[in-house]
């Protein structure tokens, strides 16, 4: 299948983005990358500790990966902008996963601050991938602000509750002329497949793999699910019927 995902000047063959948090050892990360087939990996800048051995997360990520530093911990547009600039200064490239979260209880993103930060960072040349609460109006404003994609949540971060926001994400896929990447909440491979079947451009997930009993097995399961969901979307799903439709009860008389 020749299905390339063009984003931020890169041509990706994998539509599964993964994370680096929550693992019990950083040494697992290269194996998870291999098993998942992912080409993009997000890293919280707050955790990047360049001068420290095994705990330096960057030394476990192969150079072929596209780094997606994130602004985890930012509570305002200003903090997110500062973190993004620190990431660039730390030689982590110009992609940034923008996270602006004022709510520590549910970790829900603040769309208004996110739009403000996107305007500034896109103008500075960052490839901005904003994490957001699914909302069509906000997504269009993010597009106008220069975002390279929009990343609505499926359900709260780390909740593994799946695609609870399906209706809203579906509308965004229909209406926003940017890639829609479902980020957060995906707990099962079937949910990742569901997002891809709907037409999501990619999915980003971490907890479901990092906290699985066998992270490598789960990484492979998600790899297959994302591929299957994408293939189903490209192949055109058949219409869904409520009941079997073998006959024509209303118009059958016409051919009698």
């Amino acid at each position, binding site marked *: 299948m020749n299905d390339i995902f063009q984003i931020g000047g890169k041509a990706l063959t994998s539509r599964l983005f993964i994370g680096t*948090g*929550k*693992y*019990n*050892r*950083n040494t697992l990360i290269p194996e998870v990358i291999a098993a998942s087939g992912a080409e993009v990996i997000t890293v*919280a*800048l*707050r*955790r*990047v*500790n360049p001068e*420290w051995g095994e*705990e330096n997360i960057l030394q476990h990520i192969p150079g072929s990966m596209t780094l997606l530093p994130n602004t985890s*911990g930012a*509570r305002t547009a200003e*903090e997110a902008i*500062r*973190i993004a600039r*620190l990431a660039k200064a730390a030689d982590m490239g110009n992609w940034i996963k923008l996270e602006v*979260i*004022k*709510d*520590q*209880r*549910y*970790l829900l993103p603040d769309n208004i601050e996110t739009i403000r930060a996107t305007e500034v960072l896109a103008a500075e040349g960052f490839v901005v991938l904003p994490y957001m609460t699914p909302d069509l109006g906000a997504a269009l404003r993010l597009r106008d602000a220069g975002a390279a994609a929009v990343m609505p949540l499926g359900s709260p971060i*780390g*909740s*593994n509750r799946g695609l609870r926001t399906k209706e809203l994400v579906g509308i965004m896929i229909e209406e926003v002329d940017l890639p829609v990447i479902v980020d957060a909440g995906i707990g099962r491979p079937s949910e990742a497949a569901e997002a891809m079947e709907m037409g999501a451009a990619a999915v980003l997930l971490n*907890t479901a793999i*990092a*906290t699985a009993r066998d992270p490598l097995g789960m990484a492979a399961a998600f790899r297959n699910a994302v591929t299957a969901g994408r293939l189903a979307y490209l192949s055109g799903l058949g219409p869904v019927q409520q009941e079997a439709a073998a006959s024509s009860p209303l118009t059958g008389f016409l051919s009698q």
Partner: protein
Amino acid sequence: MSFYDRLLELERFPFRERFPEYTDLDIQRILTKPKMNEDDLLALLSPAAGRHLEAIAQKAQQVTRSQFGQVMQLFTPIYVSDYCVNHCEYCSFSYIYDFPRKKLDMDEVEKEAIAIAGTGIRHILLLTGESPKDSPVSYMKECVQVLRKHFSSIGIEVNPLSVQEYHELGEAGVDSLTLFQEVYHQETYRKLHIKGPKRNFRARLDAPERGCAAGYRSVTIGALLGLHDWRQEAFITALHANYLQSKYPDCEISLSIPRFRPFLGDYHPDSDVTDSALVQVILAYRLFLPRAGITLSTREPAHLRDRLIHLGVTKMSAGVSTAVGGHVSDGGTPQFEISDGRSVSEIREMLYQNGLQPVFKDWDILV
């Protein structure tokens, strides 16, 4: 509105009668719930819950791992001054004790900082005794200027300050505040805090809220378990945390679980906090506040800490000396006796062996 209003209401609450009323069935029912309310918290701290610790622990562990992952944040306190104008019944820094007091100058702060940073620690907690003359805000600020060269997150555990003062320290690089009420039971508080500004219960109670209002990223509160009935104190501490979490959603609220330790004097607490009680408190905190950090200090012995890390704890101190300047010399008088004297690298190794990743750095100073 302050948490004080709620506290006054709680003073009329019949804790003594209510705790024994919960049954095994109540606990089993609560464990099927996805979210806990205040009544569930009370039940989780009841004697009935004490009979179901394993089942509660299973759930608490699951919540902790899904919320925080398989990681443990490490930090180290730095004691810079033990001058204190307070007389508290349970503390070695009380002014009534006659020992050579010490306050580090900035060269000494830097030497301590280098010694601590050399262990890999990036989160530092600055501690002073309460003495506006010896360790005023200007002194704390000077310390912060030195510390920020060596650490990526700076917390303070000092006497209660005003919003303006917290803000000033925030501008210098402080991002988090730790402040324990010690005891929420007002009568006990008055009895134990004999002299000094710390006698002002209300000024202390509202201080964590002032830290939130000053824009701190993280605020940690706690009761010193053992000073009064631990079930009641834990209940009120959790409600205080919940109050702060709801009112300041952008601040990460954490709970600490200090348990009374032997010290210079001969005060003996009136509520015996057994290991089971400590575990019950941790589990209740975790289930009532799934997103709250839970901090474990070296007051607890190594063998117990190695077990508690699986039950809800998200941050622990390592490589600790509670004496001023204790990382470069060992001359000072410790504030309390620590029980887990292992080095940072020993704690790091222990965590890996227990399937947890030590996190040394989880912030960058943004100011």
